[in-house]
Each structure stands twice: as C-alpha cells, then as structure tokens.
C-alpha cells in the first residue's frame, strides 16, 4: 500500500470541474454535509477511492469569488494529478 500524504488547496476553480475530474479519476461520492466555519456555510462533498479521500468544500450562496477548499489525503501521484487539474 502506498504511503498517503496530505495537501489542502484553496483555488478559484469551479467545483463542477473539480468534481467531474475526481469522478473521471475513479473517485466516488461518499457523502455530503453542510458545515459552517468562519461564519460561512459550506457544502462539503467527500470523495473516496480505496484508502484515498478528497473533500471539496464550496461556500453556499451567491458569493463571489468562490474559492473552494480541496483537501486531499492520497498518494503523491494522486495529489499531483489533482493539482494539475486545478492549474
């Protein structure tokens, strides 16, 4: 089993693009939740692929700019692949 590393990124990329890329990479949606932090409401999606987990949190509402937070716990290859999609 590969060693898992962690990386968290906050980017100005639409979550639709991120979610579609994760599904293409073989991740599946595990669960969703509404969270609140810093006084802001977030829609949090958790993707899993084996032991690897990626959460995508996007602020709810008409907020601009939207800067979803993507937190990855995965192999170095997976992290690189996701970072490439976000560039």
């Amino acid at each position, binding site marked *: 089993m590969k060693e898992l590393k962690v990386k*968290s990124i906050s980017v100005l990329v639409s979550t639709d693009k991120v979610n579609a890329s994760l599904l293409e990479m073989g991740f599946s949606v595990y669960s*969703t*939740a509404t*969270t*609140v932090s810093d006084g802001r409401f977030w829609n949090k999606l958790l993707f899993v692929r084996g032991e690897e987990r990626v959460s995508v949190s996007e602020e709810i*509402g008409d907020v601009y700019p939207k800067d979803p937070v993507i937190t*990855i*716990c995965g192999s170095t290859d997976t992290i690189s692949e996701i970072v490439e999609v976000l560039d």
Partner: protein
Amino acid sequence: MPFYECNENQFVENVRRLIESKQNFVVNRRISIYDDYKYGLATIPDQEFEKYSMVCDRKGYKYTVYGKVPFIDDFHGRFYSEGEALHSASNINFPKISIPYYKVEYSFNLWGSTYSHTFDALFEPNIVIEKKDLSARMKENVRIRKSSMLVHVLKFDPPDDKMLALNLPKQVIIFDVKKMTRIFDT
C-alpha cells in the same frame, strides 16, 4: 500562551509542514453535539432552506418562516400547525426550531502555542409522512376527530462520522478529548 485560529486549508497545510519536518505532535479532536438555537430556519442560506421547503416557507433570507403544512418535529417532539411562525424576523436570535449540529474542534500544540480549526456540521433534515397518534393540541389544530393520521414528520439525521473528520494521513496521531482547558501565563 498564544492561541491561533486556522481555517481548514491553513490547519491541514500546517499539519503537512509538521509531518514533512518530522516533528512529533499529537492532534486533539473534540466533537460535541449542540442544540442551542444557534441555527434557525430564517438564517440558513436559501440552498439549505430548500431542504425544509416541504413543510415551511419564507420570502427570503432573514424573513419570517411559516409552517406550510401541519408537521411534527420528531427530534424535539413538538407539533407545529399550518401558518405558524417558526422563526420570526423580528426575533431572529430565538428560532422556534433549532437545527442541531456537531461542533468539531481540531487543535495541536507546538512550542507553547495552540493552533486550532473549528467547524460546525449541521444535522440533515429528513422529511417523511408517517401515521402518528394525535395529541389534543394536534387534533385542535388539524380539526380532525380521528386518533391517528398521516402527518409530515421532520427528522434530523446526524452527518456521517467521516464528514466530521479532516482528511489526515494515518501517521498523524489523533486523540479524542472531552474538554480542553487553556492555561494562561501570568
């Protein structure tokens, strides 16, 4: 003793830097359930309010919320009638229906400083129609003589355990704690 608040991005990146610098550290986690009227139906965003639209209605954010149909709040064991104000715009800090949530607090200590990230995870509404025995108040409000009837029931489902966790690798030691006491230097 300084106490630093981080957002998710900052907290996870700080943990990553510590792992990469081969620092020994422990992450503490405290998960507590709250039902303290912090979140009410008038003050949640439209996207979240949509989930409740089967039983209540509002004109917009921070407007008064009214019951659309008679329903039972199963979590708190209360009955609400059609047209009843569930969260008044003029009394925004005191909603009638409280949305329960888990407060999740992550923290670690480094060189005498504490770094933390806190977030709330709201319970998910689950609205179903069930046959329920009616109390005297319920009978009065729905004007029915039967002892039981089909009625909308608002349930609150807790978020999945995995949604309360930050995505941290297995080599990070996480201690679950009940209470954290801060000691301040004099």
